[in-house]
């Protein structure tokens, strides 16, 4: 009869067996991949990044990519587009979400119910559906540029997207307003329907989640704090600004950062409505070159880097805040 192994030996054996099994599986998949790539005449490695992309990217701000540029430049423009929409959407989502969180706690019944309804409605509908919806609203229901809606002076909303004024120089302040030519706008910046739909959808969707976080954070502040502030004779606004929010922020910030992360990850749904973000450009690259492994690896690496960086920043912030809390 075999001698029973003691737990530590058994654990070691387990792990060695697992490692061997993983290596075998990895080897199996790797040899398959090499065979397949050879038989399909697909190149491997990242050399393709420096080849000519051959497609134009309609949308870009800081960098522009023409058909003659390399795949690397196309992907960089895609990444910048991701950042552009995610940054703008997160900013607006924070503003709307903060308002929603406060509105849900309002003593006014109508306001609280409307905010609650907004949150329940938007949280329970998939984001892709919302993006398709906004895209349909912009391209189908809005008028042509000639009859563009003009809700705020300088801003024109039409089925070609949203035209906004731009700041040409800061000092002296010079603003360029979009003006309507024969068929389209010139001057200012015209945000494409794809960008507008993605930005709108992302901001409104993320706002619903941020609203809940803000509400929970405020509710978690001890009621005694509120009563004590009231007894001191502070006004409602002062209580919120000086007493409740600074304490609530400590609870709000960690889940808020993960919402920003979600917002960046969700911006990858751009591919569904044709906004050229990183994922949709990587998708084009995969279709053109067939180098699926490298393409998917690039997407994953970029998002993983963003996730880990933001998590690290959040941990740093948490430590700082915890220290400050301990001191007081």
């Amino acid at each position, binding site marked *: 009869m075999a001698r029973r192994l003691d737990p530590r030996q058994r654990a070691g054996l387990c792990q060695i067996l697992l490692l061997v099994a993983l290596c075998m599986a990895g080897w199996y998949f790797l040899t398959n991949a090499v065979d397949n790539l050879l038989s399909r005449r697909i190149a491997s490695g990242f050399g393709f990044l420096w080849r000519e992309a051959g497609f134009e990217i309609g949308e870009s701000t800081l960098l522009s990519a023409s058909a003659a540029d390399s795949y690397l430049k196309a992907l960089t423009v895609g990444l910048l587009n991701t950042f552009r929409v995610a940054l703008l959407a997160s900013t607006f989502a924070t503003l709307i979400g903060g308002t929603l969180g406060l509105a849900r706690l309002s003593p006014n019944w109508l*306001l609280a119910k409307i905010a609650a309804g907004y949150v329940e409605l938007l949280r329970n509908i998939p984001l892709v559906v919302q993006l398709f919806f906004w895209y349909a609203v912009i391209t189908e229901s809005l008028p042509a540029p000639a009859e563009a809606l003009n809700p705020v002076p300088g801003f024109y909303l039409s089925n070609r997207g949203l035209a906004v004024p731009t700041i040409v120089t800061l000092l002296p302040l010079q603003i360029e307003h979009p003006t309507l030519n024969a068929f389209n706008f010139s001057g200012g910046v015209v945000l494409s329907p794809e960008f507008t739909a993605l930005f709108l959808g992302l901001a409104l969707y993320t706002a619903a989640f941020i609203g809940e976080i803000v509400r929970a954070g405020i509710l978690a502040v001890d009621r005694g704090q509120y009563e004590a502030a009231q007894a001191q004779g502070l006004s409602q606004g002062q209580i919120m600004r000086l007493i409740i929010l600074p304490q609530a922020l400590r609870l709000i910030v960690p889940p808020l950062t993960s919402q920003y992360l979600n917002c960046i990850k969700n911006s990858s749904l751009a591919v569904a409505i044709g906004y050229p973000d990183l994922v949709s450009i990587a998708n084009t690259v995969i279709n053109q070159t067939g180098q699926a492994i490298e393409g998917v690896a690039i997407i994953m690496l970029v998002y993983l880097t963003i996730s880990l960086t933001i998590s690290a920043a959040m941990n740093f912030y948490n430590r700082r805040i915890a220290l400050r809390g301990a001191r007081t």
Partner: protein
Amino acid sequence: MITRPRVTIAHPAALLHWTRIRLFATWRSSCVTLAIVYLAAKLLPPLFDWALLRAVWSPTHAALCRDTRIAGACWAFVADNYRFILFGTFPAEEQWRPALVIVSLLALYALSGFHLLRRPTLLRLWFGELLVIAMLMWGGVFGLTYVENERWGGLTLTLLLSTFGIALAFPLAITLALGRRSGMPLIRWLSIGYIELIRGVPLISVLFMASVMLPLFLPSGVSIDKLLRAQVAMILFAAAYLAEVIRGGLQAIPAQQEEAALATGLGYWDRVRYVMLPQALRIAIPPLVNTFIGFFKDTSLVVIIGLFDFLTSIKVSLTEPTWSGFGVEAYLFAALGYFAFCYPMSRYSQRLERQTGYGTSLRALRDN
């Protein structure tokens, strides 16, 4: 039993009092109320007009949808395409089969949600249901004609993807959650690596991986169909999120439980099976329901890799020349469809949270 006196708001004095404190407490509150009433009066009638009064309902009058004088919602789109939206391209005379699948799935979800049956009975029922679904959808037995899974689609496919996705992700998720708490460093690091990798990347990249990358890793000649690949991707994705929820449940169990189990001489698997998991899973039910809601919404992403689920069916129906340009109505209907599933589930999980007291530490403060 003591019955509380019911406050009847119908009484005029009570109603007046309620209005005063909830709508017109301060001058600022009054302004908000008036502004909301004004906006509602301005926006709701035209919306009501468009969505109901002027709407075109019957597909036989599809031409009216394009009539600019009517300018109402074109719900005829839904009426004309509902079979495709519900069942995909399943053969018309066999569509009672996916219909039965939808109904039985919904019934079983309701049974599970309202605790109408004992747990072992429920488990057996669910297992039976999965077999019945496979039989009804594929056929080929008991005189049912065989239907290849390329023809499955619509709402049926959405329900199947999410149900099977969660059911099959569960074992993997439990393994990962236990692995993350394991004393063996290799197993712990592998689990952490997997969970953080999947949670750090968007679902689309996992779907791309399954749809364009996976075929490259299989021996030549072997091919897995698109539906199965997407399902595998959904399972791998869901497992990472479920694992974190289950880990939360495991962490919430008092340490003495495991120590006591250890002291009675139970081995690792017995401790896990009889002591840890039953408690952890019970604690984790409300967040598990929330994860399921998220997962149900996420199944809509298969539209990007071209699988015919509920959303894709609607999108594809729009490409017919008769219905092009009615995207607003189509996606409002899609939104309504998803909402009809997700909202009851979210109410259910909120009720559970209140009952079990977990996750309510924040809400409880308000009720004090």
